[in-house]
């Protein structure tokens, strides 16, 4: 048995979203069973199945060191505040 991750995309501009996962013996069965498990009420217009073994993944230890870098959250608010102050001083 293999585990497949199921993604559904609604009609229109929505992106594919993870709907859940499914365990099946092969691709054909995975498609049929995913259809009944996740799309029987027409929850999506398109469906992707991805074998979980094919997913390239990274865990906490790989991502977490980036959590402590506030300087990467530059939203431009400091610059905007200074320019606003300059405009007000000039008028």
């Amino acid at each position, binding site marked *: 048995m293999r585990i497949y991750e199921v993604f559904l995309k609604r009609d229109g501009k929505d992106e594919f979203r993870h709907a859940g996962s499914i365990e099946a013996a092969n691709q054909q069965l995975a498609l*049929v*069973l995913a259809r009944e498990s996740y799309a*029987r009420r027409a929850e999506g217009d398109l469906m992707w199945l991805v074998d979980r073994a094919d997913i390239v993944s990274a865990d906490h230890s790989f991502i977490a060191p980036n959590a402590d870098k506030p300087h990467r959250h530059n939203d431009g608010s400091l610059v905007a505040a200074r320019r606003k102050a300059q405009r007000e001083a000039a008028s």
Partner: protein
Amino acid sequence: MSGVAAGSLSDGTREFLLCLADDEHLMGQRHTEWIGVAPFLEEDLALASIGQDELGHAAMLYELLSGPGRDIDDIALGRSAGEYRSCWLVEQKCPDWSDALVRHWMYDTAESLRWQMFEKSSIDELRGIAARALGEESFHVMHAEAMVAALSLSSDAHSRLAHSIAELLSLGVAMFEAPAGELDAIDDGVVSTSMVTLLPEWQQRVDARFGEQDWAAVDTVHQNGRTTRSDSFAPMYDVMREVLLIDPEAKW
């Protein structure tokens, strides 16, 4: 083709359509009995969903047969056992998963052939029902095929499936027995051909999927044009009418 109004169906045609409706109804009922107890969750959902489709087909046909003073609930659940026209295959309990799966395969393979008989029906509504049913049947067959194909690779499952085929083959053939009213239905142009003409194609598909069968040795099941019920019917009939017996006003 000029359409015949569904309200003016001949008695024979009504009886014939009842066969297909009752088959769908009882098959749906049997499939949904696997809710919560199928071998794994995904299969639980799939079989229940397929069962719902079959109940939907039954409801469309019962609707066609309904009229003033006889609504679809009266037809679906208000008849006596002798008035049903189901084939015996769909009446079986099949508590063994292998039997239930093989029955599902046999039934839906037959269905996908049977609905094609209505593609040129003289009744407008029936052509519509058939088109819708055929669209859904292709997924039912896909499900049954994929499941049987995957299981056939294991020797244990393969022998269990072979046992189920041997067990159910005569009932499978009996699906195609000429039901009461069939000649009238053909005369009325409601259906293009008799059911038994579909049997060779069905047998060929069985042979291709499960290996060559000894068709000459298959017992004949005496359903008497589907006018008699098998022993499995009575207990299912009681379950189907359980709610109705508590509340006669309940709607399906």
